[in-house]
């Protein structure tokens, strides 16, 4: 029983980690007033950028160096997803385009990029078979050597690849920056009331750009984690599924707080996987349980809007573009 529970917790964390990256990235973005519905697409691009660079590297050498594998793929995932958010930022911040429409187009585009390169990468190099970047996958999956010796505790909490821990650290750092630093104060002001921030001498455009691009890059790591740590360096079209939207849901569920997002992501990850661990479930019951994350998100959305407690509402200017000389 305890073992099952331990396995369940560990599986929840594994499922929750990509969601956590997506959610923290989106929180950072939304704090600046940008509702980036392109996050699901960005996460696909984060994943495929890692796959492409990793593939080129592993193909070029007989014995891939695990550190190089990680550095190369990590950097390309960051760059790829940052470029995606840059497209979003340029359109919504500089050209003041509608955020919903731009975000949805970005998701279409990003998922297209992911599936296209995932599906045709081997063809471009004249290779056949399927993508299997075992060396890089193993590098990402490598856990602390002594973890397995620490019994159940080690297996449950210490047996993950490094990106799992990085996700938590990133969430905590994001929380610290948002709540405790001057930059965070300014950022929240931009999202709540850009006109006020502007009048206070804050460069609204710069803050929006930086938080959106950094947020996108963080979200991209979620895709990277998925392709290397979770599925070990392979690619299946649409394999990432709807996890991107689940990350958007977590933002609401966590009330725009990165620290709450850690717990929420693992909870959602647990809900995603729990049907495997509950004995005697029919297939249909499992599907119904998977609906839970969305339903609880909706309930949270409704409750916060009815209660209208100011601290729990979305950033006040979320979804609106800012133009100083608006009359």
């Amino acid at each position, binding site marked *: 029983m305890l073992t099952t529970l331990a396995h369940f917790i560990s599986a929840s964390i594994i499922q929750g980690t990509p969601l956590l990256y997506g959610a923290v990235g989106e929180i950072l973005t939304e704090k600046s007033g940008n509702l980036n519905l392109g996050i699901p697409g960005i996460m696909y691009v984060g994943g495929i950028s890692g796959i492409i660079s990793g593939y080129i590297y592993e193909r070029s050498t007989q014995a891939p160096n695990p550190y190089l594998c990680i550095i190369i793929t990590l950097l390309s995932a960051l760059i790829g997803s940052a470029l995606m958010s840059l497209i979003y930022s340029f359109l919504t911040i500089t050209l003041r*385009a509608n955020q919903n429409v731009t975000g949805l187009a970005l998701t279409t585009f990003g998922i*297209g990029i992911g599936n296209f390169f995932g599906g045709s990468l081997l063809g471009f190099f004249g290779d056949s078979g399927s993508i299997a970047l075992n060396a890089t996958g193993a590098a990402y999956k490598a856990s602390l050597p002594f973890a397995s010796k620490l019994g159940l505790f080690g297996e449950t909490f210490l047996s993950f690849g490094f990106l799992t821990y990085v996700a938590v650290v990133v969430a905590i750092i994001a929380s610290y920056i948002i709540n405790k630093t001057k930059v965070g104060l300014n950022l929240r002001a931009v999202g709540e009331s850009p006109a006020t921030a502007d009048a206070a001498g804050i460069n609204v455009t710069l803050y929006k750009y930086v938080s959106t691009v950094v947020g996108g890059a963080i979200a991209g790591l979620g895709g990277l984690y998925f392709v290397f740590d979770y599925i070990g360096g392979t690619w299946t079209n649409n394999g990432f599924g709807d996890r991107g939207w689940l990350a958007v849901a977590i933002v609401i569920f966590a009330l725009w707080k990165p620290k709450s997002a850690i717990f929420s992501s693992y909870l959602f990850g647990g809900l995603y996987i729990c049907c495997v661990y509950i004995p005697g479930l029919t297939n249909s019951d499992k599907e119904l349980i998977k609906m839970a994350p969305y339903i609880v998100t909706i309930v949270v959305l409704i409750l916060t809007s009815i209660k209208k407690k100011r601290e729990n509402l979305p950033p006040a200017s979320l979804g609106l573009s800012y133009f100083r000389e608006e009359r």
Partner: protein
Amino acid sequence: MHEKTHEPLIHITKRAFLEPWKALIVRICAVLLALLTAGLFIVLLTGLNPLEVYAEMFKGSFSTNRKFWILLQKTAMLLCIALAVTPAFKMKFWNLGAEGQVLAGGLACTACMFYLKDSLPNWLLILIMIAASVLSGIIWAIIPAFFKANWNTNETLFTLMMNYAAIQLVSFCIAKWVPNGSGVLPILNSSTKAGWLPTLFEKQYFLNVLIVAVITVVMYVYLKYSKHGYELSVVGESQNTAKYIGINVKKIILRTVALSGAICGVSGFLLVSGTGHTISTGLAGGNGFTAILVSWLAKFNPFIMVLTSLLISFLQRGASQIASSYQMDDSISDIVTGIILFFIIGCEFFINYKINFRKKEDK
């Protein structure tokens, strides 16, 4: 003590108005630039000469009669969902839940086919299916609208979540109906064709296209000539004006979103009864989102939507054609769609704003 500062190099101001023909030129330029960029992208990937690329894309839709009908069918389905989201958008209600509403409609329709089989005359069964689809679409849409109207609950996020609730509901039903655990519902009633929309003029999709054409005209008339259409435009333009003339804003929100859900339900019906005769979670295939863009690009005019949905379907079919001719992945069509959308979305800036460059020389 003070640093010398200068007049800003670029100063952006809002335009009061841009003549329609100038706006049209801006938009046409954007589409052309987008086609050029998309072409360039494909040229870089395939090493083809650009003209061949466009010729190949053209083939994707027009080389055979069958391909042409597939284009029509794709356009019709995209258009139908775009028409559905339009009244809500015109009222500035951001319904991102078309995907879920289509699924809800399709699911109700499938359930009728699954349970009733050929126990009823086909015409009656189809009528029941339509009613069930429409009703489910309405229910799925009106839940977020109810909370929006009463508590101003954020409808963008709410409708988005409803999509995934619908997807899981469909998975649930499929798992219930298909005990073997494959998760795939086979084509229903393939021997009796009960609940299948009839094939007219030996064209499977004829009736689909016809129905959508009728909805297009009706929607145009509804938006332009009906009292309802007039009311929802006033609410969308200015809730202040609506209250000033005594419009009950809540009622209009609920009514309009219900209509939006109802047409999504019809789309679900057409996709099940008139197209696939089964259901999967990918029934709407992302069209629920693309439709939003189609409607928005056409500035909510149903007749222009015919063109925008045709443009997008054509590009997607063309890109697929290239993908299959050169053994690439079919998803290239999504990339091309994305590129087109970015350009058209971006060009609005040049219609709404004016860029002034520095007049004075530095002293």
